């Protein structure tokens, strides 16, 4: 069964949420991935949105992070003071999904500017909640397309802290959350399970070579001891994504890989 790169990213992210209790969700692919996880590998998953929603049960695909469908039928709708203070800083977020324009080998993220901060070449959206989400969530998963201009040696601006300079630098600084755990891209999966806390290749997607992956990364990529192949999406996963979660194809793409 053919599938798109976005569908594979959605499915890979959903599978990684197996057994997770609470997830901090973003719009787009992360939103579809979390809803797929709840219907498959994580039936007890509670969806948390920075707009102030806990336990969302969206009846339609939300375009924005503050869609009214997230409110109706949710377990709780709270102020943002409560959402960021009690839920996030209170340590109740198991996994948060983040993205960015640039990421480095330790999972630090830039969503602020390309170029100099005071005279930016491109002005990006900025932090939103990402800076405190990256600091406080137990683990963070990044969902990004693998491109050389995004996987860089040095960020133009560190918006959200990952493993900082690697090793135990994150704990030394006093960041409460565990930091980046997984990077999900359209070509491969990476984790940080080594003492240096450096991004390492753990799986390539079907039909993708290690060389192809390395070509899209600015630094010398570290390989895990066993690099596996990502299992292709199942018919059931694809059916849920296509028929229930994104019937109009807004986010899942059209071009099969």
């Amino acid at each position, binding site marked *: 069964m053919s599938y798109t790169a976005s569908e594979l990213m959605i499915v890979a992210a959903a599978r990684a949420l197996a057994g997770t209790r609470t997830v901090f969700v973003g*719009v787009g692919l992360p939103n579809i991935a979390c809803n797929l996880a709840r219907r498959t590998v994580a039936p007890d998953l509670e969806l948390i949105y920075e707009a102030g929603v806990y336990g969302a049960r969206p009846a339609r695909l939300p375009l924005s992070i503050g869609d009214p469908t997230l409110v109706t039928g949710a377990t709780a709708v709270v102020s*943002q003071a409560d959402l960021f203070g009690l839920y996030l800083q209170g340590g109740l977020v198991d996994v948060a999904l983040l993205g960015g324009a640039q990421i480095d080998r330790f999972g630090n993220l830039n969503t*602020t500017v390309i170029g100099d901060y005071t005279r930016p070449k491109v002005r990006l959206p900025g*932090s939103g909640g990402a800076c*405190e989400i990256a600091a406080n969530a137990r683990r963070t998963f990044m969902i990004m397309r693998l491109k050389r201009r995004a996987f860089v040696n040095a960020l133009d601006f560190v918006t959200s*802290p990952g493993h900082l300079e690697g090793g135990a630098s994150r704990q030394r600084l006093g960041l409460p959350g565990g930091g980046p755990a997984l990077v999900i891209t359209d070509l491969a999966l990476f984790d940080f399970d080594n003492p240096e806390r450096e991004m390492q290749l753990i799986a390539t997607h079907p039909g993708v070579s290690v060389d192809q992956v390395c070509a899209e990364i600015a630094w010398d990529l570290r390989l895990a001891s066993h690099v596996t192949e990502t299992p292709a999406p199942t018919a059931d996963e694809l059916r849920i994504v296509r028929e229930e979660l994104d019937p109009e194809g807004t986010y899942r793409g059209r071009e099969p890989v």
Partner: protein
Amino acid sequence: MTDKRCSMREAIARYVHDGMSVAIEGFTACICFAAGHEIIRQRRRNLTLIRMTPDLIYDQMVAAGVASKMIFSYLGNPGVGSLNAIRRAVEHGVPAPLELEEYSHYGMVGRYIAGATRLPFFPLRSYLGSDMPRANPLIRMVEDPYGGAPIAVVPPLNPDVAVIHAQRADVSGNTQLWGLIGSQKEVAFAARRRIVVVEEIVDEAVIRADPNRTLIPGLIVDAVVHEPYGAHPSYAQGYYDRDNQFYLAWEELSQEHERIVAWLDAWVYGVPDRAAYLEKLGAARLAQLKPAPAPAGVVDYGAYQ
């Protein structure tokens, strides 16, 4: 009970003046576009615009030239793309340069809380390991007086004026808001003046029948504006949906400054008030945005005589 009702024109003329700091809050929901448009029509200048998510409303206001500075935490068209007018102002100084003062979401929330509770700062577990404090020296690190690790603090924020859009209020401004309440309560208590804009004016008895839903007491409200659909193309939970078509269209429309100017001529300067804007929008469009009902269950507060 004081009747604080007035028109949007009167409220803006009375409370929003050149050079002031203005917060029109609402996180995706209940963003008072009607107030933003009236500020544009009254040609205010050199405003400091405050919002966590500037959204299309500040994109329009920046393009119209009302602002010289913005305090914010997320500069995007939610779910769609960029805020192109604000980017043009920041990247190219078109139509005029715009000074930015930037935080994260929780930093903005913390500023409102410190402002509302009259505290000198708000501590939060954020900004460690981030370049944000270097970009904005108002974000600082302090020693924990109880011996823990250093912690980030942000200063209080007290906007000159806050505009809060809500579902309903009584004539004295006791205001009830539901759905995404965002930071509307915090910004209202932080501000020096508060304009409340509502879909419905209700009897005081309606407010008193459900006191847990009252976010803002009339005590701190200066003006009450009855402006149905005043949040369009944003939304009011239970009253109308977000006009996502408009948010998607804005991405294309806002690519060029001249096209925004033409849009402002037609939809802001070209109409005298919100009622005329709605007439131009058309009843059919509004009908499409009407959700099916999903009423809350009734709770019993009990009568204790």
